[in-house]
C-alpha cells in the first residue's frame, strides 16, 4: 500500500478552509450537555468538607450530626483520623444528600478536630524557606560562565517573578457517578476519556471497592475547560463513586468555585535573579540565573532556563520551594510562560542597557535559537510589520506629554506538539452513512471539527456526511489532551482509518466503473475514475454495493503525517496611566506556525484565546496566600481576576502556512501562543514608562512602585 499523505494543496476541499466548529450550534443554543448538566433519576448531590488548616493532623472526625440531617444518604471519610492535611481546601469528608442545599448544609455540620502543624504558604526564596522546605533540582553549567562574563562588555542584573495562578476552569472539576450492578458509569469533565477508567479502578480499590477498568464507562461529550488540570477522576471523583455505591443512587459531585480555585489547579510560580551579558554589538555571551518557585509540596519540574536562546556560557541553578498552597497541575504549556517571562524580560532589559532596539537585539542573536531560527526571524519580521514596530517603537520612556504613556514589547516562544497515541475506527455503512470513532475529547479546541474535516476530505464527502463519535471510552483508545498532542494524534489516525476504509470501498466499486481501485478517487460525494467525472457513481450507490456488511477500518497515529516543534512571535502595545498605575493592553499581534493548519478558523481562535489568557495572567491573575492563616484570600471570581471583554484591546493573528510549513504535517497549537503575552506585555510596559515592573501581574500598585511613586509591597 502506498504511503498515506495529506492531499496536495490543489486537492484540498476542506482542509485549510475556514470552517465553523461543528458542535457550535449545540453550545450556543444551550443544548450541549456538560458533565455539570447531567441529571440522573434519583440522583444525589455530593458536597465535601474541606480542611481549614494549611497543615494539620486530623485528631477526630465526627460525622454523626451530619448523617442525621434531612436528606443525607451517604458519608465518606476521604482523609482518616490520624493523617495530615496539607493545604486549606484539602478534601476531608464527602457526603451526598437528596438536594444540593441539604448536602451543603450537612457539610457544615461535620465536626473535625485538628492539631495544627507548621506551614509555609509564602512564595519565598530558598534561603528564607530553609533546607527542609527546599529541593534543589538543577545546578548546571555550559561553556565557561566566568569567562563568558569577562568577555561581556555590557552586563545586566535583575530579579523577576511570576506568581502562582490557578486554572479557573469555568466548568469546575467533577463527575456524576452511577453504579449499574458491578459496573460503574461516570460522566466526567475530563481531558482524558480513554485513560480514566484505570484510574477509577485503582482509586476505588484503595477505598475497598473492586471494579475492573473494563467495567468503568467514561462519558464526556462536552467539557467546560481543562487547560491541563483535568487528567483523572481526582479524589473527589473517587469519592462520588464511593458515595454512589453506598447510597445505591447516582451522585453528582461538582466542585464549588472556592474549592476549584483552592484545590483543582495551580500553576507553579517562578522567581529568579538573573545576570546576562553581551558584547557591545548585542551578541549574547553569558547567562547566570538562580531561580526558585513553588508548586505546592511537589517539585513541579525543572524550568528550561534560559528560554530558547542557547547562550554559549551559562550557569543555571533552580530549586523548588515546598509549600502548603495545594498541588500544582499542568497549566497550558507547563513551565514555558514562566521561563519565557524571566528570559525575555531580562534580555529586553539588557537590550535597553545596550541602547538597542529589542527587535534588532533579538534578530542579532537569532542564530542561537536552534533549528527553528529561520522561522523565528520570519515571524519576528512579520509581527514587526503588523504592529509597525519600526515606526512606533521608541527608546525606553514614552516622551509624549500627559500622564498616559505607550510602549511596545516583544517575545518569542516555542513548543513541541507531536501527536499522541491515537486509534480511529472508520465505519462505512451500506446506506452510505459514515462514522469515525475515537476515544478522544474536545476541550473546546475544535477536535471534533478537525476530525470531521479530515474524514470528510478523505472520503470526498461534505462535513455532514460523516458522524464524529468521541467522548466515550467505548471507542478506540486515544491519548489524553495534553501537550498540544491531540490534533496530531487524531488527524493522522483519522486520515489513515478513512483512507483504509475508502480503499476497501474502491475495491468493491472498481468493477462497475470498469477500472482498477488505484484509478479511482472519492471527490464531491462521488467515486470516480481519477479526473473523469463522466465515469463515476454517487457515494450512496457506491456504498450500496457493500451488500449487508459495513466496512470497518482502523487507523493509528502516523508519524509521517505529523511533526513537532513550533515557534511564534508576539508583540504588544500597552497604554499606562502613570497617575493611577493602570495598564491597558491596547494591541497584541501574534504570529504562529504549527505546520499544516486543518481549520484556520478554530486555529486562529486558539491564538486569540491564548493572547487573552496571557493578558489575564500578565495583568490580573495571582493566587494570594495569607502568611498568618495559610488560607488563600481570593478563591472566587471577584478577587481572582480574569480580564473582561472591555479589558482586551485589539488582537491580530497571523498563521504561518504554505510552503515551508504545510509539508511539515500537522502540529499541535493549543499551548504555544499562551507563552509569550506575559513577557511581551511586561516589556511593553517597561518601554512605555522607562522602568521595569519586575513581577507579574502588573498591578497599578506595582507600576506606581516602579515609577517611584510609592505603593505598598
Amino acid at each position: 500500500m502506498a504511503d498515506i499523505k495529506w492531499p496536495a494543496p490543489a486537492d484540498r476541499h476542506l482542509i485549510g478552509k475556514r470552517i465553523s466548529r461543528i458542535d457550535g450550534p449545540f453550545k450556543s443554543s444551550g443544548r450541549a450537555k456538560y458533565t455539570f448538566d447531567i441529571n440522573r433519576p434519583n440522583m444525589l448531590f455530593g458536597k465535601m468538607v474541606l480542611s481549614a488548616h494549611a497543615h494539620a493532623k486530623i485528631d477526630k472526625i465526627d460525622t454523626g450530626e451530619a448523617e442525621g440531617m434531612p436528606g443525607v444518604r451517604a458519608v465518606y471519610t476521604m482523609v482518616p483520623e490520624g493523617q495530615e492535611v496539607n493545604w486549606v481546601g484539602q478534601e476531608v469528608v464527602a457526603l451526598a444528600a437528596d438536594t444540593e442545599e441539604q448536602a451543603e448544609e450537612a457539610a457544615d455540620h461535620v465536626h473535625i478536630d485538628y492539631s495544627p502543624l507548621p506551614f509555609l504558604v509564602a512564595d519565598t526564596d530558598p534561603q528564607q524557606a530553609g533546607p527542609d522546605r527546599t529541593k534543589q533540582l538543577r545546578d548546571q553549567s555550559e561553556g565557561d560562565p566566568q569567562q563568558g562574563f569577562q568577555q561581556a562588555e555590557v552586563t545586566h542584573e535583575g530579579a523577576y517573578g511570576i506568581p502562582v495562578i490557578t486554572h479557573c476552569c469555568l466548568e469546575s472539576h467533577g463527575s456524576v457517578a452511577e453504579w449499574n450492578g458491578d459496573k460503574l458509569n461516570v460522566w466526567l469533565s475530563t481531558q482524558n476519556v480513554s485513560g480514566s477508567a484505570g484510574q477509577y479502578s485503582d482509586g476505588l480499590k484503595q477505598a475497598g471497592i473492586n471494579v475492573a477498568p473494563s467495567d468503568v464507562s467514561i462519558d464526556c461529550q462536552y467539557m467546560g475547560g481543562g487547560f491541563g488540570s483535568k487528567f483523572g477522576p481526582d479524589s473527589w471523583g473517587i469519592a462520588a463513586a464511593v458515595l454512589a455505591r453506598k447510597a445505591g443512587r447516582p451522585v453528582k459531585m461538582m466542585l464549588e468555585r472556592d474549592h476549584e480555585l483552592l484545590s483543582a489547579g495551580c500553576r507553579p510560580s517562578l522567581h529568579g535573579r538573573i545576570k546576562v551579558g553581551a558584547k557591545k554589538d548585542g551578541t549574547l555571551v553569558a547567562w547566570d540565573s538562580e531561580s526558585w518557585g513553588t508548586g505546592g509540596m511537589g517539585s513541579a519540574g525543572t524550568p528550561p532556563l534560559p528560554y530558547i536562546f542557547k547562550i554559549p556560557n551559562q550557569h543555571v541553578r533552580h530549586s523548588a520551594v515546598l509549600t502548603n498552597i495545594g498541588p500544582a497541575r499542568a497549566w497550558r504549556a507547563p513551565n514555558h510562560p514562566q521561563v519565557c517571562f524571566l528570559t525575555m524580560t531580562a534580555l529586553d532589559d539588557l537590550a535597553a542597557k545596550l541602547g538597542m532596539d529589542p527587535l534588532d537585539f533579538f534578530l542579532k542573536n537569532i542564530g542561537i535559537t536552534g533549528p527553528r531560527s529561520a522561522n523565528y526571524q520570519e515571524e519576528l519580521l512579520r509581527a514587526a510589520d503588523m504592529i509597525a514596530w519600526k515606526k512606533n517603537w521608541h527608546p525606553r520612556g514614552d516622551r509624549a506629554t500627559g500622564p498616559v504613556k505607550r510602549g511596545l514589547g516583544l517575545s518569542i516562544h516555542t513548543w513541541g506538539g507531536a501527536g499522541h497515541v491515537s486509534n480511529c475506527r472508520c465505519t462505512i455503512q451500506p446506506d452510505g452513512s459514515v462514522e469515525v470513532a475515537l476515544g478522544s475529547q474536545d476541550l473546546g479546541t475544535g477536535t471534533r471539527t478537525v476530525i470531521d474535516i479530515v474524514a470528510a476530505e478523505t472520503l470526498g464527502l461534505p462535513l455532514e456526511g460523516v458522524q464524529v463519535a468521541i467522548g466515550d471510552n467505548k471507542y478506540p483508545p486515544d491519548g489524553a489532551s495534553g501537550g498540544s498532542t491531540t490534533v496530531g494524534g487524531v488527524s493522522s489516525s483519522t486520515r489513515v482509518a478513512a483512507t483504509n476504509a475508502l480503499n476497501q470501498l474502491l475495491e468493491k466499486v472498481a468493477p462497475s466503473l470498469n477500472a482498477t481501485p488505484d484509478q479511482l478517487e472519492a471527490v464531491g460525494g462521488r467515486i470516480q475514475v481519477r479526473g473523469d467525472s463522466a465515469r463515476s457513481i454517487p457515494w450512496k450507490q457506491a456504498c450500496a454495493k457493500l451488500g449487508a456488511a459495513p466496512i470497518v477500518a482502523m487507523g493509528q497515529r502516523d508519524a509521517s503525517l505529523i511533526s513537532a516543534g513550533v515557534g511564534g512571535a508576539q508583540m504588544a502595545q500597552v497604554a499606562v496611566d502613570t497617575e493611577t498605575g493602570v495598564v491597558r493592553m491596547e494591541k497584541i499581534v501574534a504570529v504562529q506556525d504549527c505546520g499544516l493548519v486543518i481549520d484556520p478558523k478554530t486555529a486562529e481562535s486558539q491564538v486569540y484565546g491564548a493572547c487573552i489568557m496571557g493578558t489575564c495572567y500578565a495583568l490580573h491573575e495571582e493566587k494570594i496566600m495569607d502568611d498568618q492563616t495559610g488560607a488563600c484570600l481570593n478563591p472566587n471570581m471577584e478577587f481572582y481576576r480574569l480580564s473582561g471583554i472591555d479589558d482586551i484591546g485589539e488582537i491580530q493573528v497571523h498563521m504561518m502556512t504554505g510552503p515551508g510549513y504545510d509539508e511539515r504535517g500537522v502540529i499541535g497549537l493549543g499551548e504555544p501562543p499562551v507563552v509569550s503575552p506575559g513577557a511581551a506585555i511586561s516589556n511593553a510596559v517597561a518601554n512605555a514608562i522607562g522602568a521595569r515592573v519586575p513581577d507579574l501581574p502588573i498591578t497599578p500598585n506595582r507600576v506606581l512602585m516602579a515609577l517611584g511613586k510609592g505603593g505598598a509591597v
Partner: protein
Amino acid sequence: MSKRDHPDHSTDSGSARDGHSQKKGKPSSGLSRRQFIKGTGLAVSASVLVSEGLLKAAGAQEASGVAGPGAVPIRLRVNGQVRELRIEPRVMLLDALRNHLDITGSKKVCDRASCGACTVIVDGRPVYSCTMLAIDAQGRSIETIESLASGDDLHPMSQSFVDNDAQQCGFCTSGFVMACKAYLDKHPHPTYDEVKKALNGNLCRCGTYMGIRNAVLEAATKTSTKGAQA
C-alpha cells in the same frame, strides 16, 4: 478602565441589570445569596414575606408569617410555560432551573454574581440567576437560552456566535448569548465600543471575546436588516 467589582459597571445606565445589581429589585433581593441564608432554617425574613409571589404560593404558611424551612410549592413561568415545583425557599433560581426542572443551559460557575454564566432574562432584563431566589422569580417572565432556538433554527444571536467562532469550551456561551440578546433587544444599533462596555458583566476563560464582539455586531446588523425589510 473597566471594573467588574460591581455589576452596575457592566451595563450602561439604560440597561442596569436588576438581578445583577440587586438594587432596584424587590426588597427581598438583599437576601438573595443562599450562602447567606443557609442554615438559618429560613427565618427569612420580613422582606421575603412581602414578595407577592411567595404569598400567593405559600398558601397555608401565609398565616404563620414564615416560609419554610421545608419545601414550599412555587410556580415559575419559564420560557412561556408555567412550571409548578416544591422547593425550599432558599433555592436559587439557577438551581431551581438546573436541579429541579432539568433546564441546564444556564451554567453555574462563580455562584456569586461575578461571571454571568448563569444569565437569564427576567421581565426583559438580564439577571444573574445564581443570585436570585427562585421564590422571588415568581410572577415574572423567565427566559432561558432554551427558549431561543426553534427546532434546528438557531436564534440569530446563537448563529452569530457559531459564525464568528465566539465560543470555545462553551461554558460561558449560554450566559453571553443571553446577555447579548438582552442588550441588543434594548440597544439594536450598538457601536463596537458600546458592545465592549455592555458585556463587561460576563467572563470567559478560553478567551473568546474577539469573536463575541463581532458576533454581537453581526447579529445587530442582521436583525436591523430584517426589521427594515419587514
